Structures are given as structure tokens and as C-alpha cells.
């Protein structure tokens, strides 16, 4: 039996969705995105679950898109980015309150998953951010989510500057909602927070989240789909290909 790339552990009313590819720092490949999507669809059908914690197995939360397999093939790259776009929409559309537990690096598309969750908790020394422009890539799928979470002006500054930041800096700019001082404190903090969140009336939480999704345009499928298209076309440029190859060694 092969190891699942995503696991869902349900202890109603709390569920934990884990990215489970620790040897690749939970980098998002097309098969992994498919498994994550399947687990998210299972959650969608679980009215007994009120809170979903999203986290990464091993040291990293998620190192970003696994571009190695798709670098030579624009069609596959496009598919990968569309899968990410659709996963972000599916997570945002979940009836549960989603809580990203950023246990380690959350980079690019990985930081996008942390951003699309309703709440994001990390520790002071985690590495988060969107280094896409450093590699000649365009963070077009995550841009709408970041704009919604931290506002247009700050999202512009973060995405154009590229690079990475600490958990503390991520909190200062609004990407993380809470930061604990050390990794050792993260599990306990998130467990307690999930417990508190799950005490809310499930109907009231669902109605509130659904309203927020409506007023901030979260369910606009077209914008993230077009983002995937743009991102794929920039990925195909010689500059991006060259930088990515150099980085992958």
C-alpha cells in the first residue's frame, strides 16, 4: 500500500487535514493536490465537524509547488496550477472554520494555503512568504487570497518584494493571526484554539463564514482560474525556466 499524500483525521467536532509528503517538505505535486482535494471534499460532507486544522507532516508546512515534474511541459504546469486554484476555492468554500497550523516553512503556494484558511497560527521562527518573483514566477493564484487577507496595499508590497519572513513578521503584516514563541508550544496552542472555536454554534459559524465569503468575493472561481493561466504562461518564459532549473540544480 502506498503512503497517502494527504490524511484526514476526524475527532468530531475537530478534524485535522495533513499534507503528508514530509520527505519533499510537503511540496504540492499534482497527485498530492488531488488527494488533498479528495480529503477536502470528504470534509465538505461532514456536518458533524466544525473546525478543520490544516497542517504539514514533518518539519515543513509546505515548501510550495513541486515544479520539477512539470518544468518542461506547459500543459502539465497549467494543470498543476489549476489544481492549486481549485483546491484553494474548495478550502475556502468548506463549511468548517479552517485553521492553518504553520509548523514550519510555508512558501509560495504553501503560504497561499495558509492564507486561504480562515485563521493562521505559526511560531516565531517559521519561514513564510512568497518568493515567486525571485524565481521569475508570478504568484497569480495566491494574489487574490492575499489581497483579501491583508489588504491590497500590503499584498502588493509583500508579493513584489518577494523573499521570506519569520512568523513574527508574518503576524505583523497580517498573514498570521497568532504567533507562539516556539514550535514546542504550537500543538498545544492550536489544540486549545480549535477547542474554543468548536464551542461556537456550528450554524452561526457556517452562516458567518458564508456571508464573509460572499462579501469579499472569495467564491469568484474565474479570478483564480485566470491566475492559474497567467502563472503558467509566466512559468514558461525562458527567464523563469532558467532560474528554476538553477535552483533545482
Amino acid at each position: 500500500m502506498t503512503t497517502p499524500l494527504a490524511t484526514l483525521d476526524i475527532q468530531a467536532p475537530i478534524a485535522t487535514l495533513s499534507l503528508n509528503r514530509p520527505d519533499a517538505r510537503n511540496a504540492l505535486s499534482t497527485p498530492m493536490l488531488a488527494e488533498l482535494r479528495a480529503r477536502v471534499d470528504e470534509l465538505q460532507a461532514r456536518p458533524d465537524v466544525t473546525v478543520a486544522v490544516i497542517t504539514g507532516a514533518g518539519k515543513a508546512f509546505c515548501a510550495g509547488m513541486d515544479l520539477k515534474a512539470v518544468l518542461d511541459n506547459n500543459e502539465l504546469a497549467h494543470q498543476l496550477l489549476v489544481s492549486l486554484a481549485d483546491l484553494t476555492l474548495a478550502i475556502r468554500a468548506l463549511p468548517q472554520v479552517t485553521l492553518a497550523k504553520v509548523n514550519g516553512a510555508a512558501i509560495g503556494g504553501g503560504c497561499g494555503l495558509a492564507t486561504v484558511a480562515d485563521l493562521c497560527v505559526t511560531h516565531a521562527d517559521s519561514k513564510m512568504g512568497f518568493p515567486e518573483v525571485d524565481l521569475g514566477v508570478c504568484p497569480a493564484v495566491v494574489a487574490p487570497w492575499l489581497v483579501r487577507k491583508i489588504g491590497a496595499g500590503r499584498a502588493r508590497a509583500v508579493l513584489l518584494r518577494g523573499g521570506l519572513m519569520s512568523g513574527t513578521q508574518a503576524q505583523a503584516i497580517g498573514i498570521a493571526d497568532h504567533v507562539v514563541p516556539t514550535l514546542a508550544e504550537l500543538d498545544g496552542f492550536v489544540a486549545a484554539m480549535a477547542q474554543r472555536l468548536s464551542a461556537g454554534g456550528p450554524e452561526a459559524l457556517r452562516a458567518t463564514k458564508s456571508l464573509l465569503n460572499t462579501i469579499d468575493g472569495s467564491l469568484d472561481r474565474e479570478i483564480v482560474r485566470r491566475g492559474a493561466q497567467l502563472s503558467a504562461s509566466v512559468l514558461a518564459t525562458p527567464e523563469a525556466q532558467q532560474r528554476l532549473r538553477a535552483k533545482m540544480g
Partner: protein
Amino acid sequence: MIRVEDVGAVRTIRLDRSEKRNALTPRMLDEFVAAIKTSTHARVIVIEPVGPVFCAGFDLSECRDDAGALPSLLTGLAWATATMRASPAIVIAAAPGAAIAGGCAILCGCDLVISTPDSKFGYPVVKLGISPAVSAPLLSLAVGDGAARARMLSTDLIDGQAAHHLGLVHELCDTPEACAARAHELAATLIDKPSTGLAATKSWLNEVDGSLAGNTIRLALETSLSLVGGEEQNERLAEVWSQKRDSEAAKQRDREEKK
């Protein structure tokens, strides 16, 4: 009044009217827009002041004897911010000292803003019967609707620390010199990044946040223009000129008495 310097892929645009705290005139805004529009080889534009103050806003003394000056200033400002936003180059401002009204509007057109903790920002123009509406669309994107409302309806100024907290300023440095140095350091790191991805990211952000969508900037400009020449604005500006005349006359008397 506008100085342009190109070094490699970085264009530096300097507001050079330090004796007037870089207050904007219609001609200065025309030159500014031209400097942005002709920057076709630049991948990053740094806007910085000559002297310790970024920009004190419109030079209203231009409007004293010229009824066309204020409409030109407002139109030039709308055009300047829209041009900055539409430019494929990343626009960075080193904005120490103060960025008041029109100066603040220019910051809202930038992608990245660096300032000092003690600098001053705000729109103290409604007391002159002037509407800062022309700045509203991009200010709202920079700081959110609630904070934009507070800034434009109140004449209070905020300092650099508060502006950083709001997101109008993205980085703080201790001195004007350090602001300029940081802006150029940032420019150097940006031109090192692949150009297609960076330009695509800026243009995508414009689309996602609706920076240039529809006719909001035009509508905002029309709102500011609609008050020009009205009774309230005329009276309040006349009051400013009369106070100026009185204080100039008082200075003159002092000088004569000293003699």
C-alpha cells in the same frame, strides 16, 4: 522642478523644489507624468525629494491669481497616480519628512513606500473647501476603506509610525538619507529579479485589486473638480490669501521698525 536620472534599469525622479517643501505646481506635475511615461527602459522608478521633505502638497499660491491652476493641479495629480500605477516599472518612494494631501496621493500611487517614523501624513484640505476625493480610490486600496475615510474626512495629520501601522508606509528608516539609501537598495534587488514575472505580478495585482478598473479615478477627480470655483472654496481660499497678506504686511512692518 523635476529631475530625472537613469542608472541602468533604475530611473530616479527627484522632486526638486526644496525651498517650497516640494509643493506641486501644474508644470511640476506635467513634468512628473512625463518622467513616468518616458521611463520605458526603467524596471524600477525611485521617487525621492531634494531636501528633507517629500512633498507639502499643492502650491496653492499658484491658484491665487490663476483660476485654472487648481483644476490643472487636481487633473495632473489624478493623471500622475494613474500613470504610476499603470507603469510596468515598480515604483518606490523614499518619502521622509512629510507627504501632505497631493504628496500623500502620490505615495498612494507607489508600489512601495519608505519613510521616517516622525514624518507627517494626511489631508488637511477640507478646511480650505478642497475635496481630497481625487486620492480616495488608491488611498482606500493602500490602507483599507475605514482608515481612508478617517484620513480624508479629518484634517489631522498622522506620523510615520502610524502610517506604517496603517500600511500607507511599508518600511521605516531613521533619517531621510537612510530612506533614500534603502529605496535604492530595494531597487537594486528588484532589478535583479526576472523582469517578466515582476511586471506580470504588478499588472495582475492591478487587476485583482481593481486599481485602474472602471472609471473610479475619473469619478474621484470629478468630485474634487466639482467644488472648484464654488462659493465655499472661494471664500475659504480668499481667507487664506488675506491671512497671507496680513502676515506678509506684518513682516514688512517689523523689518521697517528694525531699520
